């Protein structure tokens, strides 16, 4: 019992720190690509609105990037402190992938990020645009390494076990393991969606307060186009990802669906709502739609999927949790599709920037993308339990042997520090967004670069200081 508690605490600690962390990279990925699109629009049309929007969102991007760097520092050590047996066992695969992620991030900071944040006056428009595109690509490459590592843990491939340790035999197979392409697409699109929702909510918030200008209209409009096109696409990708999971991790799907057993001659229903009970091996208060589960998962009328009772008790993930986290994610996804359609309808009627109920809906949906990302990761990570490397190493065999007391103390410290630190960061970010874009280059970026006080190794420095700073103390040229 004591051991179980320590394992659970180690998992909660890792889950807590990585949940905080993932928010920042997700928005970084989305904003970097958004900035590249804005600059492309600027170069194509010459419309200065895009420049104003670029300057505005690049500050948000910089703060967000900085928070990601700070919260990422812990991640580089937690694999060893909390999961030492796993790291020794699988470090041959996960280590180089993590190292490449870190190196990619450094490459960005030492290279293109500086030009992107501080180079407006120093390089030509073409070179600046290339830098922005490289930063956007860099964030995607960075994500690729991490998702390759995570996907390998979900669907390991390209390795051998020699002397009790994982040895990579084929790096191509390691990286392009069976679940990797689906996870990459799903997470990449999720980052874009979360960012579009954040941008849309910012625009709607300003419009509701009567702060109506071309820049705010443009960003609201762009966000809603993005949502309209990409939210349905995400549903399709999610479906493919689910079918891939069914093939490689059937227990996860059974838990998500709350599917306990296959009855002879009966298709798999879709359990809309219910309360899966792990001990009683059944769903309470279940509301089912016959055949729909078969239809969604096997794309046939009577297809069967493995059920939870087909797996030994100790091999089952916690269905109570993943059943609900999955439904939170899907429910929010549906609302995103709905928002996209409503926005299109309002746009066609010429009311996109005036309809207050719609604008309020946009504001409410601001955090929806981030919540959906977290819910999705909870589903996939809790759903692959009890395995840390699926089918190869159990989570209980990968954890460091710390006592519950130690883990409890450090967890409490993490919670306090993270809420203070990232709470302050979030407040600052929201204030920055609340200021809104300034028009006609009134918001031109501060100068900086290597050796300057403001530079890319300190992304946060690209954002403005306290508004109370007297002008004579403000950074000069």
């Amino acid at each position, binding site marked *: 019992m004591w051991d179980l508690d320590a394992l659970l605490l180690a998992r909660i600690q890792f889950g807590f720190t990585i949940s905080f962390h993932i928010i920042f990279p997700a928005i970084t990925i989305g904003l970097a690509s958004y900035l590249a699109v804005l600059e492309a629009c600027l170069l194509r049309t010459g419309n200065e609105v895009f420049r104003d929007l670029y300057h505005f969102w690049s500050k948000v991007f910089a703060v967000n990037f*900085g928070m990601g*760097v*700070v919260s*990422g*520092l*812990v991640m*580089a*050590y937690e*694999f*060893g*402190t909390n*999961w*030492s*047996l796993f*790291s*020794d066992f699988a*470090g*041959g695969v996960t*280590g*180089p992938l*993590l*190292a490449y*992620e*870190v*190196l990619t991030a*450094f*490459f960005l*900071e*030492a*290279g293109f990020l500086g030009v992107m944040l501080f180079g407006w006056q120093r390089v030509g428009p073409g070179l600046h645009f290339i830098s922005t595109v490289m930063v956007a690509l860099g964030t995607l490459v960075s994500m690729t390494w991490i998702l390759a590592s995570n996907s390998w843990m979900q669907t390991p491939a390209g390795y051998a076990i020699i002397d009790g*340790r994982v*040895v*990579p035999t084929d*790096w191509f197979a390691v990286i392009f393991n069976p679940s990797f392409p689906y996870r990459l697409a799903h997470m990449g699109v999720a980052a874009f969606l979360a960012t579009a929702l954040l941008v849309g909510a910012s625009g709607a918030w300003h419009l509701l307060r009567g702060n109506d200008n071309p820049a705010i209209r443009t960003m609201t409009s762009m966000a809603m186009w993005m949502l309209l096109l990409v939210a349905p696409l995400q549903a399709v990708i999610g479906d493919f990802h689910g079918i891939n999971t069914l093939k490689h991790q059937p227990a996860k799907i059974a838990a998500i669906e709350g599917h306990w057993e296959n009855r002879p001659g009966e298709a798999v229903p879709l359990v809309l709502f219910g309360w899966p009970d792990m001990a009683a091996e059944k769903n309470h208060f279940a509301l089912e739609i016959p055949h729909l589960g078969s239809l969604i998962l096997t794309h046939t009328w009577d297809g069967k999927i493995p059920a939870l009772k087909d797996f030994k008790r100790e091999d089952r993930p916690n269905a109570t949790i993943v059943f609900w986290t999955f439904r939170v994610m899907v429910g929010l996804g549906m609302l995103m599709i709905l928002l996209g359609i409503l926005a299109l309808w309002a746009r066609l009627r010429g009311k996109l920037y005036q309809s207050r109920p719609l604008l309020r809906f946009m504001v409410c949906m601001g955090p929806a993308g981030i919540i959906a990302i977290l819910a999705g990761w909870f589903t996939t990570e809790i759903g692959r339990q009890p395995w840390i490397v699926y089918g190869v190493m159990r989570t209980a065999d990968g954890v*460091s*042997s*710390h006592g519950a*007391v*130690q883990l409890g*103390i*450090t967890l409490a410290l*993490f919670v306090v*520090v993270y809420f203070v630190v990232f709470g*302050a*960061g979030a407040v*600052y970010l929201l204030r920055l967004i609340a200021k809104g874009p300034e028009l006609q280059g009134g918001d031109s970026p501060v100068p900086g*670069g*290597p*050796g*300057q*006080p403001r530079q890319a190794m*300190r992304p*946060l*420095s690209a*954002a403005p*200081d*306290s508004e*109370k700073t007297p002008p004579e*103390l403000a*950074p000069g040229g």
Partner: protein
Amino acid sequence: MGIDLPLVWAVIILFGIMMYVIMDGFDLGIGLLYPFFSDKSDRDVMMNTVAPVWDGNETWLVFGGAGLLAAFPMAYSVVLSALYLPLIFMLLGLIFRGVAFEFRFKASEKRRHFWDKAFIGGSMAATFFQGVALGAFLQGIKITGRVYSGGALDWLTPFSLFTGIGLLAAYAMLGCTWLILKTDGPLQERMKAIARPLTWVLLAVIVVISVWTPLASPEIAQRWFSWPNLLWFSPVPLLVLVAAWQLRKSLLGPSHNAPFVLTLCIVFLGYSGLGISLWPNIVPPGISIWAAAGPPQSLGFALVGALLVIPLILMYTAWGYYVFRGKVDATHGYH
């Protein structure tokens, strides 16, 4: 015979850690000196002297963690789980300090004092627990098979507490001499006044650790005092004494650069001394870099990326320091 990959990686990681110790050392030191300077403009100047460089310094810490996992997964897992508590405390300190650094500039006058305190507390915690972790590491880590088999508080010993305090002295000295290099006038004079007694403290710390480690470990004593090692390694302690003597002299004279350069020399020599004591072990007392190394396929794959990116980071860092050369004072920029 191909390349000795574990050796190459050990050199890369040792280099990374040295870069970290030297570079983050002086900016952590500034946090340690903050309590002695309550005037806002002094504090602004002190922080301005590291603003252009500090975050790049922690790059090396992240790289050290990821590189260790990639190249020596066994050492990564054993050392990090043995030093779980001090390392977590250190990381929390670093987070607090890093964010305080940024938000101090963004905060209103009313809130600034909070971030000042966070900066001081974070710097102290990060430095002290880094020193504790170092001491616990030097004392050796209990392993059964490939797994840490000690207790939760094995790291807490008189020696590790001493190295914690020792590192506080070393980083404060680095910060102090860095400020002598980067400032002028009364602030510089006060730094010199602090640096003079601090030199003796630092020297005492080095002497105590140099005596304590061989006494505690016969292997380390054997490494240093057997013939002809004694001959090869004797320049290290001798150079420390020469550098300390020169340092003391330079602090009495008009020199601005010499104190920092000499402190760097002393820190570098101390680092070399620890390296001599442990080599080729990556987990003292008995696990060598070859025993702890991951599969060659992993080391080779990661090496390609490291060799491409590290030179770039070094160039960027050098360029940054070059642009930032010269003195910082209250009229030169807000931060």
